[in-house]
């Protein structure tokens, strides 16, 4: 017994105790040094799968746990008390916790509730366990559920939203209710009547004639199709396709050429020249329009001159001497 190395035994004990303390710290005693905020909600639906210790998540991030679940017998709703770790909320540029106490967190949450933040029960997996998820399930605005419903002014109230499963069940119930309203017997009677009418109709001679006609049409259609197949052979189709391809190639070449010519033509300059020419023509037209009156007068004078000349030539033809003697006076003038 004298050979005991007390140093080693002491080392063993100190190591074990240090390990014990470390294990306790890492397994949850560190929670004692974490700032937590407490809040509560009310669920009208079943909270099957939710238990004390279930996770509380904000948009899928675990931020706390369920502390307590109680039944409010007066309104038959389930009150769920939760605690949320404040150090999980941070600003984007900060490393420290955004909230230092419950009051700051309450203010933040009240603002977010007006933005549509609600809590909802979600399934954690195929095991049936559930957790409380905070997300913006409602449109922005004041919530329908009021904090006064909690009958506890000291605890922050967050309104709940029906779970997805409940929504599905509600939709299913509505659908089933609508299906139950369908009058199947009446539909069945109508169907029977319709079937008997159809049978009568099918037994009519007109339908038989029509069917025979359809048969002959079908035969004709087959023949026509055969003829078309004979005429439109694969070689012919190939030829048409080649010709089409050649035509398209020619069109493409032409298009390219036009495109090149158009580029070479310097369209802006041409357009400007055309514009200038049009202006000159317009001016000329205006000038012509202004000279038109003078031209008319000149033409009239020229006409009269031509008349006088014709009269002179006539006179000279009739009496060439008049060129020397002048024009004779009419007989009436002689009588006077």
């Amino acid at each position: 017994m004298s050979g005991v190395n007390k140093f080693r035994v002491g080392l063993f004990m100190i190591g074990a105790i240090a390990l014990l303390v470390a294990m306790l710290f890492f397994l949850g005693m560190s929670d004692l040094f974490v700032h937590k905020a407490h809040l509560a909600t009310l669920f009208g639906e079943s909270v099957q799968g939710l238990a004390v210790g279930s996770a509380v998540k904000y948009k899928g991030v675990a931020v706390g746990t369920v502390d307590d679940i109680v039944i409010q017998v007066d309104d038959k709703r389930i009150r769920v008390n939760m605690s949320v770790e404040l150090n999980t909320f941070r600003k984007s540029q900060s490393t420290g916790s955004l909230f230092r106490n419950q009051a700051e967190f309450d203010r933040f949450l009240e603002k977010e509730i007006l933005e549509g933040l609600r809590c909802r029960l979600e399934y954690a997996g195929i095991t049936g366990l559930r957790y409380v998820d905070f997300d913006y399930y409602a449109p922005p605005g004041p919530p329908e559920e009021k904090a006064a419903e909690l009958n506890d002014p000291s605890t922050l109230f967050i309104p709940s939203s029906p779970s997805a499963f409940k929504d599905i069940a509600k939709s299913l119930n509505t659908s089933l209710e609508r299906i139950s309203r369908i009058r199947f017997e009446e539909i069945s009677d109508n169907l029977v009547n319709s079937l008997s009418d159809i049978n009568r109709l099918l037994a009519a001679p007109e339908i038989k004639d029509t069917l025979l006609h359809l048969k002959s049409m079908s035969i004709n259609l087959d023949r026509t199709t055969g003829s078309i197949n004979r005429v439109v052979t694969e070689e012919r189709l190939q030829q048409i396709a080649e010709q089409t391809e050649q035509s398209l190639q020619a069109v493409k070449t032409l298009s390219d050429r036009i495109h090149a010519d158009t580029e070479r033509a310097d369209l802006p300059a041409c357009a400007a020249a055309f514009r200038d020419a049009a202006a000159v023509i317009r001016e000329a037209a205006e000038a012509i329009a202004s000279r038109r009156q003078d031209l008319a007068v000149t033409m009239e004078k020229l006409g009269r001159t031509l008349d006088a000349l014709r009269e002179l030539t006539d006179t000279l033809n009739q009496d060439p001497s008049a060129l020397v003697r002048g024009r004779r006076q009419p007989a009436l003038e002689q009588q006077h």
Partner: protein
Amino acid sequence: MNELLQEIGRDLRRGRRLVEFIGAISLELWHELCHWKKFRRRECWYYLDLCGRQSLPIVLLICGLMGMILGLQAAIQMRQFGTELYVADLVGFSLLKELGPLMVAMIATGRAGSAFAAEIGTMKVNEEISALSTMGMSPERFLVVPKLVAMLVALPLLTVFGDVAGLLGGMLVGVGWLEIPVAAYWSRTMEELTPMTFLLGVAKSFVFALLITLSGCWRGFESDADAQGVGRSATGAVVDSILLIVVADVILTMFYSIFGY
């Protein structure tokens, strides 16, 4: 019929001696608590070294391997469902609540329980126990109480080491074989395990320490006064301890479950 009655009579007398033994241990323990300055610390240090420090390597090895085995077995099943991360839960819960304390107790039974029985049995063969009684000294105070105190200290501490080694063994499988990131495995383990899970497992080891010491010492005192008798008592101590540990584990687990743990 006569032999059967004699056998029953022997068992009854043995039962009576066991009750007296437990009573004597309780009284001596109380006496030591009241007179803690007279407590035989040197013997206690010796047994602490024997049962605690010297058992540490084998405890670390066995529990580490146990964690690896659990991790591998869980991984094979959970891989089929894509839930490899839950290996951390299974290894953590199994080790901290059950297998850690149980495996450490088994190791302690093999090392300490048999040693106690053999030591006291040899002393009985050498009539040292009779000498102590003749001199008016309580054999229980000198021989049992230091062992009991040392075991009550050593076994929970060994359990802490065993738990950590088991968790690391499971983590080795999770990280090395299942390629789960260390941070994810660690985070999952810390998320699922609670201080209460850990402490309840450690609390079991107090009961196991008591049972191992008492059965070892009882078998030593009941040993026949010959060499073969010492061997039989050492074997009997191990068998009794294992049986008592398993039974106590069942009872404790049921007891914990009543309170929701």
